[in-house]
């Protein structure tokens, strides 16, 4: 349906030209990459779209350091179907991505636009659990951990997301994604991504990220520390699940109460870590 409030459509031909529109921080202007969000949920104050489709990259490439770089214009389908991304952490990316809308949305929605939006996302917890780096332009090319991008409020400053980089995972690494929603089509009431890299005996890297709380994703640091210290024993998993429940803020609303979400934090943390453990034990 046409958005009558949108009166100007700009199509820059260079990153610098796009930046010249974005830099002043005009609240009536919005960057457009895929567009799925803006066609439906454009805030009423938006009058100008800056289409960056001709400026940003859509390719997904392997970098010499073993990381996989995704151009901001790569579609969610491009990411989901990439054969090497599909193997990361035991297949956590396609496992998650299949829950994001449907093919008719994933085939045009971009990873850059999705991350810049960041809210109500199944994608962001998984990217955070994989220690994804983000690259963006704010007059100069910048890079940061995606975690820093959100935690330091960089996502709220004028910028253009140019790409994301998934680091290489160690051989003994597994990840999992779980979500709980009223229906398959609905936004999650709560979701979680877990990742554990095994050292010689104990986990040497643990990520537990809960999203749809309904705020932007949060890491359960206390729970991560328990798994890192004690390993993936049944007792440690249970202890970590209880710790996650204690440290993760959950909000209430018409979809779910705060208490309900809080209970889900414990349940999904336990289940997610159990899945990771099973994957690590499977040769």
């Amino acid at each position, binding site marked *: *349906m046409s958005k009558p409030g949108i*009166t100007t459509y700009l199509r820059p031909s260079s990153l610098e030209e796009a930046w010249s529109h974005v830099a002043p921080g005009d609240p009536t202007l919005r960057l*457009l990459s895929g567009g799925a969000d803006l066609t*439906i949920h454009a805030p009423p104050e938006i009058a100008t779209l800056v289409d960056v489709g001709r400026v940003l990259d859509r390719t997904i490439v392997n970098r010499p350091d073993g990381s996989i770089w995704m151009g901001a214009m790569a579609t969610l389908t491009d990411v989901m179907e990439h054969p090497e991304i599909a193997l990361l952490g035991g297949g956590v990316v396609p496992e998650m991505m299949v829950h994001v809308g449907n*093919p*008719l949305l994933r085939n*045009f929605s971009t990873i850059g636009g999705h991350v810049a939006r960041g809210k109500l996302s199944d994608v962001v917890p998984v990217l955070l659990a994989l220690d994804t780096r983000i690259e963006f332009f704010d007059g100069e090319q910048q890079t940061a951990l995606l975690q820093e991008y959100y935690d330091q409020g960089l996502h709220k400053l004028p910028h253009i997301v140019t790409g994301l980089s998934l680091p290489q995972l160690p051989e003994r690494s597994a990840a999992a994604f779980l979500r709980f929603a009223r229906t398959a089509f609905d936004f999650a009431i709560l979701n979680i991504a877990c990742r554990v890299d095994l050292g010689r005996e104990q986990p040497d890297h643990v990520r537990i990220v809960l999203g749809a709380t309904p705020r932007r994703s949060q890491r359960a640091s206390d729970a991560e520390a328990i798994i890192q210290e004690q390993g993936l024993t049944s007792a440690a998993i249970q202890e970590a699940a209880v710790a996650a429940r204690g440290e993760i803020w959950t909000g209430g609303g018409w979809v779910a109460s705060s208490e309900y979400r809080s209970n889900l934090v414990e349940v999904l943390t336990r289940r997610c870590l159990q899945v990771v453990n099973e994957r690590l034990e499977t040769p």
Partner: protein
Amino acid sequence: MKILLSVNGKQQSADVNAGDTLLDALRANGFTSVKDGCANGDCGSCAVLIDGRAVASCLVFAAQAEDYQITTIEGITGADQAYHPLQRTMLDAGGVQCGYCIPAMILTAADLLEKNPNPSRDEISTYLVGNLCRCTGYVKQIDAIEMAASVLRGEIDD
């Protein structure tokens, strides 16, 4: 604003507003096989192929589509107006009732079969998750897509 759309292999000029979706532009230019069901990304009736991938045209701004090849159901029919195997099997299998969702469903199935010529019923069902049909129970349509896949693989005649 004037934009240039490439639809079914032909370039044509379209006069659109900055906030118009591709769905708006296609219907205003005579492509009424692209259905305006929910205009909210939920029903899938407006799906078209954009560079060969099925996309809900209500989720794309019209001006964005300038750089892509758009295909509607008219574009997958053969040059001699012969039905595409998906159109033929959809009729033969009884997959069409009111018909409203069918053009989009066929285009989504065409996208699936292009990348997966031999999908399982589960894979067909999963790929059609964004195409709602309120008449059927999807069974006949999945039958039709399985049959079309066999035709396209040369295993049975059209």
